[in-house]
């Protein structure tokens, strides 16, 4: 039993960060929601007194072909990122789970990629993607994989893949380490038992690693989704969402609508749309970590 004061302190500790988040994120979200149902122009931006347009901004958005393209891009961007980050992360994690000299140390080195600010990564990859003097085209051409420059950032059929590749490079190490943690928590006896039962490496992966990792995988997938939906700096530096929005995603599109085309209502509506999606994923994530807790 604690004294009243001690209990109050504990609650204060809880309320501090939660209150902080509500004040500095909750309020902006609400503010954004309000703007999304208003006709906002530069002239009335500084006041609260703006014409109410109901769902007009949303209707306009849904009718907009470019918005649909951006939604499609976002879905591809997030899905491919999450799937491949987890796939590569799992592969790397499993490889370095082998006991060989330097395994632990090398595994840690991967995280160096994650340590770089996304903006720097964007600039770096843009430079490597350069069609005529870039590293990547040179490598591909010299090993015979392509016979002319690939216009990574100018070809709308390729640019999204290029942006995704850069983001995968950035995000995988962190995912890999989280998965390593999950793998480390699998009791070794299970593998021994499986070996005795005659399971080979692939079967052990299929029947021991994967099922034991399910909860971790789910949590990591949610986390990766949320962090991928956030991607902004990297795309901003790499392609600015272009050409013709072929690599544009929701946050960037929202930012561009508001700050480049003065369409604040539309920008806010895009933001609200993303918020809803993010909200659902976040709830899923919370559910999975709570399940894990119960286990």
């Amino acid at each position, binding site marked *: *039993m*604690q*004294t009243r004061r*001690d209990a109050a302190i504990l609650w204060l500790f809880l309320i501090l960060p939660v209150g902080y988040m509500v004040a500095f994120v909750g309020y902006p979200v609400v503010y954004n929601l309000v703007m999304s149902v208003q006709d906002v122009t530069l002239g009335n931006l500084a006041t609260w007194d703006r014409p109410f347009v109901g769902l007009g901004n949303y209707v306009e958005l849904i009718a907009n072909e470019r918005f649909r393209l951006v939604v499609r891009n976002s879905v591809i961007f997030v899905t491919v990122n999450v799937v491949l980050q987890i796939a590569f992360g799992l592969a790397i994690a499993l490889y370095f789970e082998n006991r060989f000299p330097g395994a632990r140390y090398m595994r840690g080195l991967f995280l160096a990629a994650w340590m770089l600010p996304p903006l720097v990564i964007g600039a770096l990859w843009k430079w490597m993607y350069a069609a005529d003097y870039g590293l990547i085209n040179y490598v591909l051409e010299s090993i015979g994989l392509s016979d002319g420059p690939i216009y990574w950032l100018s070809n709308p059929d390729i640019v999204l893949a290029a942006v995704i590749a850069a983001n995968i490079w950035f995000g995988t190490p962190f995912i890999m380490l989280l998965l390593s943690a999950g793998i480390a928590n699998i009791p070794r006896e299970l593998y021994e038992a499986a070996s005795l039962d005659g399971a080979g490496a692939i079967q052990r992966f299929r029947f021991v690693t994967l099922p034991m990792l399910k909860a971790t995988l789910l949590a990591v997938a949610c986390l990766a989704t949320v962090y991928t939906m956030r991607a902004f700096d990297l795309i901003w530096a790499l392609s600015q969402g272009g050409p013709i929005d072929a690599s544009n995603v929701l946050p960037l599109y929202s930012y561009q609508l508001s700050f480049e085309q003065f369409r604040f209502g539309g920008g806010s509506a895009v933001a609200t749309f993303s918020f809803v999606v993010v909200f659902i994923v976040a709830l899923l994530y919370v559910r999975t970590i709570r399940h894990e807790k119960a286990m």
Partner: protein
Amino acid sequence: MAPVNIRDVRKAFGHVEVLHGVDIDIEDGEFVVLVGPSGCGKSTLLRMIAGLESVTSGDISIDGRTVNRLPPKARDIAMVFQNYALYPHMSVAENMAFSLRLKGASRETMHEAASGAAGILGLGDLLARYPRELSGGQRQRVAMGRAIVRDPKVFLFDEPLSNLDAKLRVSMRSEIKALHQRLRTTIVYVTHDQIEAMTMADKIVVMHDGVVEQIGEPLELYDRPANLFVAGFLGSPSMNFLNGTIRAGGDRAEFEVDGGARLPLPTAPAASDGRPAVYGIRPEHLLSDAGGTDAEIVLVEPTGAEIHVVARLGNDDVTAALRERRPYRAGERIPLVPDLEHVHLFDRDSGRRL
């Protein structure tokens, strides 16, 4: 040193009541063991005495002062935890002197107190070590040392030996008892191990499902258990219970076990003929002797000192702890004779001693 009085204490977690009104009086300097199966509420009660759980209703007083609303630190108690709860980032000396540090004691005082306690517990060489560098028994001692340094009115022990191996448990048992005899501080000790309770306690409190079943000195409880639960809980192997009916006629009384066999009774309680009852006899009080009730051996377990023979008697199996060395075999029939002085009869419905 102080008496601890527990008066009609109840504890509810939400809508679930786990203690249903507990009364215990612990005298100054007494070593009291709360014993019972897991979930009986003994640990909860101990934690309420410590101030780690709130009291739903009733009163707990230490040294005549009601402590219901006092935080742990104001109760002048010390506690030894099941997992020792040593601070892993502090050395042995720091662990033991932590309470003094919180009081703002000087370095010398802390050092003195820590070495004093270490001396008592034979930890002198380990003061600079960290908990992770200690064996289980050593950790246990440090936890006790931490309690000793507090010089409290009451020591609380929460299953302190359950993480130790069997041999160590036995030696720690005597150490704790020796410690008590030396310090003469009131001790409330929680365990689920009835042997610990029997060997250490001045007074045992048997708890079950949130109520106190019986309070008394160890042998008193052993010899005259108040009910079926206490009878079955204390003693190992535990008391045999046979369901049957009392047959009293003239000066002779017998117990007719369901299924046919008959066992002798010392005296029949008045007007009890035909009364259904439970016949209790401890394994060591069953002898194999000619003229006894015939039983078929089901299982033979030699323990070294004695041989435990499980035999079928009527509808029930009974265990007899036999001292006589001979090759009993399953399927063999032996005659069993109860020591009449140690026959217990219990009411079938209430479980109370008759």
